């Protein structure tokens, strides 16, 4: 009988854990995780699982006065390295004896997945607290970021109990089935503050901003999405330039590539085995438009169908 009050409290705690957090509390959790990913010094090894594929990467992050510097190195498969700093991000791919360097448009990577100012996410996502868990020997709290509509995937991040650093991130679909997972296998927090030892900054071609007189415009976008980037760039194994636009709600990113086309592009739909990545191609005026992203098909389709040639 004496156990009844404790059982009641336990039940209340569980019920609260499943409830949507009030906005202020939700923002506090998101901000804590976003800040920890950038401002905390850490290094470790994490595993990425997507469908049947798995990849292991090492990561080092150092805060600095000009922001943070991070370095990711693939430990299996083709040697590949990503370096990110306030001045930009580059990918170095080793192909036998040669190393190719490419400028990256974004320095987003695990565990730094959330935008710097995540408050606006609450317009399109609900935040719930989940169970405590243990990852890489550290205790963490699951934080569920659930989409409010069908135009985006959700996430479950496991925030380290003291620092808030995400130790695990799972991208989930509408049925809460995992699409992609990142998990730290080992991680050391607060490991030194010296700058990352890096080679001379590789010389890379900076993409040109897309001209404002865009020949194509997006008549309509899914709720919450806005164009966050528009550049013209050369892509490997492709002749000429393409325009690369990126639409995002802050958490989900969808790319649009516009390439001149002599003959009408055949309408095409592409989907990855897990359904995580979706692609749609169609002809828009004199351009072949390819829309793709780690987003539900309805979002990719809505953007592709909303494109019109500017007259």
């Amino acid at each position: 009988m004496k156990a009844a009050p404790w059982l009641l409290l336990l039940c209340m705690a569980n019920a609260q854990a499943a409830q949507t957090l009030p906005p202020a509390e939700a923002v506090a959790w998101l901000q804590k995780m976003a800040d920890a990913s950038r401002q905390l010094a850490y290094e470790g090894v994490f595993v990425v699982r997507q469908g049947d594929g798995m990849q292991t990467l090492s990561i080092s992050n150092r805060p600095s006065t000009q922001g943070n510097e991070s370095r990711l190195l693939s430990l299996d498969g083709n040697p590949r390295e990503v370096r990110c700093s306030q001045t930009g991000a580059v990918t170095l791919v080793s192909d036998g004896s040669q190393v190719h360097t490419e400028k990256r448009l974004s320095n987003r990577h695990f565990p730094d997945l959330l935008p710097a100012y995540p408050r606006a996410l609450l317009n399109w996502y609900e935040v719930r607290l989940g169970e405590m868990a243990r990852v890489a020997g550290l205790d963490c709290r699951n934080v569920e970021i659930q989409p409010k509509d069908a135009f985006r995937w959700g996430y479950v991040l496991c925030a380290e109990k003291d620092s808030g650093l995400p130790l695990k991130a799972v991208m989930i679909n509408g049925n809460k089935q995992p699409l992609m997972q990142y998990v730290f296998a080992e991680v050391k927090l607060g490991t030194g503050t010296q700058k990352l030892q890096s080679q001379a900054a590789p010389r890379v071609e900076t993409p040109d901003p897309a001209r404002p007189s865009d020949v194509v415009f997006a008549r309509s976008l899914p709720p919450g999405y806005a164009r966050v980037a528009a550049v013209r760039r050369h892509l490997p194994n492709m002749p000429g330039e393409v325009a690369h636009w990126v639409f995002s709600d802050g958490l989900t990113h969808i790319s649009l590539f516009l390439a001149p086309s002599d003959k009408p592009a055949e309408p095409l739909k592409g989907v990855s085995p897990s359904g995580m990545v979706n692609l749609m191609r169609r002809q828009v005026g004199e351009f072949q438009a390819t829309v793709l992203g780690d987003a539900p098909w309805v979002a990719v389709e809505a953007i592709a169908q909303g494109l019109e040639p500017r007259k």
Partner: protein
Amino acid sequence: MNTIQDNDERLSALLDGELTDPSAQRVIQQLVGDPDGRARFAEYCAVGDLLRGHHADLPGLTGKIMAALEEEPTVLAPVRRDGGRRPLLWLAAAACGILTWGLWGGAPRQENYAALASLRAPTDVAPFLAAHQDYAQAVLDVPEMQFTRISLSGETR
């Protein structure tokens, strides 16, 4: 029965504009003194409206169509029937078809076009997938994709 069938055929022909002017006038004059005939003619008009999509204000239409269908004899063995027209039956069947099509068409669908065929991965898609990795979350290999050719509604291919 034959008389009723003949009348039905005449009403259907009148509605379809298949009668000559004198024949049409004769049928209309018969309708003036025939309340049952006027009721059947009203049903024909209602079914015609349904086929044209003007069915929002037709109370009891389904009931009337079902009653008409119930009046049809149950065929226990296939019998070769004469080529007489059964306009109400055909119209009722068409109406049921339209209703079914309308219900399916009105349901929310994720796609308004059909996948026509599976395709091999287009060679020029891989660079786009790789370039998108700039905004994806890690240095993953380009994902394998399954492609299908699709037909866009209302778009010239």
